[in-house]
């Protein structure tokens, strides 16, 4: 801070009057229109020095009139006191006892009511003509709202912000936090039973053109009660119910799950949200889809066993054998369907995990980085050691496709992710390709070294990807 006093040519213990005098003197040689940079330095020094004097000796600044006391406040500046007061109104009115906390409580109470009456009520309040009372109340109101969001419509909050002049960029309120408060409060407001109609209008929850009150109650009950397996099974098995619930949840909070009031069960909300979230593989999504696959498998098995039963009962096979054959076949179908699903899920999980941007924080970044080279090296090693191509081949090819996908996905992270449906198809295409090429390889006995070639391509792709993201591996590589 001493630089300021030095620039002004003063000792660090100079008082406000001498700072001003020095500033005024120096200003003659450093005019704002002739020496803009010099002026900026001078002005900064002046402000810094003044601020320091004011904080060091608070006695220079008159204390604010004591709130909550009945003593009339007297004007603090000496220049006003020595002058005759202009007219009768100039007599400072006695400051009535104002309990800021109570006033803030009252403001919040009115604000949670009808938004149209709010502005008029605020403008009519006598207390708010005092600038200090108004500022202190504004502070108290916002503090309380941030601590405990109320059921308040966005219009009411906007009216509050406008009246207390907090709706500007220098108000000191983080606009992001304010936006969040606005969302939370209006969500809470919409969720009170008397505003359900507005809620249904907003999220367009209707059946036959009319707001669907029953569906709303059902969804809210699902989301507010603790998660039970029975509810999950019921929702999953009812066609489309899971999708509709997902749409409802998305429309309700636009992905901001934290905005939901405390009456919602966090676990339920997380579960249903993730189960519907197409962007990534997650526990709930896996559970829900596994449930579906098992059911599909059982239905298929049941149908197959009926067909078996009919066809074999017509034939000559003994009933016992037919039954055994049918049950084995059914189990094979169920197992096959579930197995395929597990492969798809595993592939999606691996693909998502490998496709994460390099900057994503994780506990073991090296595991993610080195999975591909490790996998393909093991496959290649097995191949070289003379293991069957049916073991080595898939390992190398899975790592090859993982590497290609990883490079492609991380090359342009801004590009929208493809829908899950198409992504789920891709491993099948790859697997078919692997199978066909492996078959051709085995059948024709050609000399082309498929596995070593795939191994080389995988490593190259992986290295190219790592080179692109080298800045994150170690800052030393960051120089362009």
């Amino acid at each position, binding site marked *: 801070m001493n630089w300021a006093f030095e620039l002004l040519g003063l000792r660090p213990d100079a008082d406000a009057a001498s700072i001003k005098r020095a500033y005024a003197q120096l200003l003659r040689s450093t005019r704002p229109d002739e020496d803009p940079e010099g002026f900026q330095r001078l002005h900064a020094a002046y402000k810094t020095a003044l601020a320091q004097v004011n904080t060091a000796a608070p006695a220079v600044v008159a204390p604010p009139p004591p709130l909550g006391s009945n003593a009339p406040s007297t004007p603090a*500046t000496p220049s006003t006191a020595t002058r005759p007061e202009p007219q009768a109104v100039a007599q400072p009115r006695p400051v009535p006892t104002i309990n800021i906390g109570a006033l803030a409580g009252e403001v919040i109470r009115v604000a949670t009511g009808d938004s149209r009456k709010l502005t008029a009520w605020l403008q009519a309040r006598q207390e708010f003509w005092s600038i200090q009372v108004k500022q202190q109340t504004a502070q108290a109101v916002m503090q309380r709202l941030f601590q405990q969001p109320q059921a308040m419509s966005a219009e009411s909050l906007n009216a509050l912000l406008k009246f207390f*002049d907090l709706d500007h960029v220098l108000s000191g309120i983080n606009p992001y936090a304010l936006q969040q408060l606005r969302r939370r409060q209006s969500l809470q407001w919409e969720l009170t039973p008397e505003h359900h109609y507005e809620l249904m209008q907003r999220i367009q929850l209707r059946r036959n053109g009319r707001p669907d009150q029953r569906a709303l109650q059902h969804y809210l009950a699902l989301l507010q009660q603790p998660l039970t397996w029975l509810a999950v099974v019921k929702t999953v098995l009812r066609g489309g119910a899971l999708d509709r619930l997902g749409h409802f949840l998305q429309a309700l909070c636009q992905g901001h799950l934290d905005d939901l009031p405390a009456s919602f069960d966090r676990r339920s909300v997380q579960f249903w949200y993730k189960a519907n979230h197409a962007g990534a593989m997650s526990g709930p999504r896996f559970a829900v889809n596994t449930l579906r696959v098992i059911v599909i498998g059982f239905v298929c098995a049941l149908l197959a066993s009926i067909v078996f039963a009919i066809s074999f009962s017509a034939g000559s096979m003994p009933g016992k054998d037919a039954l055994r054959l049918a049950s084995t076949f059914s189990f094979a179908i169920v197992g096959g369907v579930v197995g395929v699903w597990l492969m798809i899920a595993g592939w999606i999980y691996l693909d998502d995990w490998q496709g994460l941007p390099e900057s994503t924080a994780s506990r073991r970044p090296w595991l993610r980085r080195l999975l591909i080279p490790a996998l393909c090296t093991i496959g290649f090693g097995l191949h070289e050691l003379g293991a069957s191509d049916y073991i080595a081949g898939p390992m190398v090819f899975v790592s090859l496709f993982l590497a290609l996908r990883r490079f492609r996905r991380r090359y342009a992270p801004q590009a929208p992710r493809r829908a899950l449906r198409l992504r789920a198809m891709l491993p099948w295409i790859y697997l078919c390709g692997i199978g066909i090429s492996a078959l051709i390889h085995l059948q024709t006995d050609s000399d082309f070294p498929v596995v070593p070639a795939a191994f080389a391509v995988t490593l190259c792709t992986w290295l190219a990807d790592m080179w692109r993201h080298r800045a994150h591996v170690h800052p030393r590589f960051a120089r362009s």
Partner: protein
Amino acid sequence: MIVGIDLGTTHSLIGYYSDAGPQLFRNALGDYLTPSVVSVDEDGHMLVGEAARDRLISHPAASVAAFKRWMGTARETQLGQRSFRPEELSALVLRSLLADAEAALGEKVREAVVSVPAYFSDAQRKATRAAGELAGIKVERLINEPTAAALAYGLQERREGSRFLVFDLGGGTFDVSVLEMFEGVVEVHASAGDNYLGGEDFLDLLQNSCLAELKLHSADFSPAERSLLRRRLESVKRSLSQQAEVSVEAQIGKHEIKWRIDQERFLQLADPLLQRMRAPLERALRDARLRPEQLDEIVLVGGASRMPLVSRLTARMFGRLPLRHVNPDEAIALGACVASGLKSRNAKLEEIILTDVCPYTLGVEIGQRDAQGHVQNGLFSPVIQRNSVVPVSRESSYFPMVEQQGRLSLKVYQGENPLVENNIKLGELEIPLNPGLSIAQNEVVVRFTYDINGVLQIEATPKSSGLRHELVLEQNPGMLSEAEIRARLAALSELKIHPRDKQENIALLARAERLFEEHLTARQLLQQWIGQFRQSLESQDERMIHEHRQQFSTALDSLETQL
């Protein structure tokens, strides 16, 4: 020679800094105040001032007033054969003012300091400069109106070390400034305001309430009748400052207007406007980091501040009555004269140095990502905060939103809202980034420099490359380009303007024509008088005209008092 000009919504004034202090010039009719009204007569001659204001009633289609409110927009007004932009209309007023100054000084005026509302935006300021160029002068400096008023007031009072608030309610704009004077320094701490709040809005209230109570519609009246009604209500508004109750009785067109209003009701009507004044007052004090009791004075300027409800408002907010040692109509013009004296380095004024503030926040659009990864775009990040002392230069750092971002688009905004969609966009700058670097390494340093004339310069430098990118602010859609100004200047100089020495006669005729519209019973008499006066004008006998003019004027005076 450099002059000071107050280019107001309803009235304009001109003056200069003489050795004896600030001095205003009288116009051809002997008044300091020239109404900011432009009219065109039947032969295509342009009229400015009192005559034009009278013609608002007799020829409403060929006259226009309150065009300061449209400054900074591309709105065009059709007058006679031509349409005019607000800059051109202001230029015509400026020309008439300059003619008055040149007549008094006997020399050509080349430069001027023009006052603008403190809360005028960049576009509005540029339009005011363009108006000066169209009037053939160089606008050396734009001075904020409250600052000008404070200069005039401070010099007059010579009170050292005082802080005061200037409350400037003009015809169309409302400004608040908090200033401090010490040791020959006039320092503006903060300015705030409302560009669309002024005396005219109070008049609108009266008009709407009157028509609503009489169950009439604005569409029931012809333009001439409307301006007649407005003029009547204007005098009602003025009388309400002194009387508790005012009534108006008049026959306008085929409607009989019989209406009364008391102060209580007017206060009730004006409440929404008074409420709108609270926020700028509070904001100015807050930005100046002062408490109401730390202010030494409250100075009211601007014609509309004469209304008692204005002083009641300030008394209610600050707990004391404002001081009004200055003439509210002339204070700003006098201050502009002082500023012109400062500009020309008048020896007597050498001791005063003025520092002003930038009234708006300037910044860029940003996005923000929270812990859950939700991104919110369209947030406004201030670089220069409002009420920073100018000249000011500030730096701020920004980062790309995502990995491997190839470029950063820097959108520059002016305004106070936390969301950019509610602010004014000034321009855009694209900065190429190195996609190979991480987010933290792709830092871009943005520097905003706002100079004393309100010109904003933006520089952006990516730290990795060190290459500097500068922003040339794009042409605002409502603004004139250099070439357009030149073309319009040529077109304007072709306009016919009545010579200054004929102004008095023209004003008299315009007044008689207005009375003809207002005075149903004396129409024949007036027609006769007008005919006679026109005849003596045609005779070109100066002495006879002079005599006749005086007779005519007294006759009109007596008619007006009857009304």
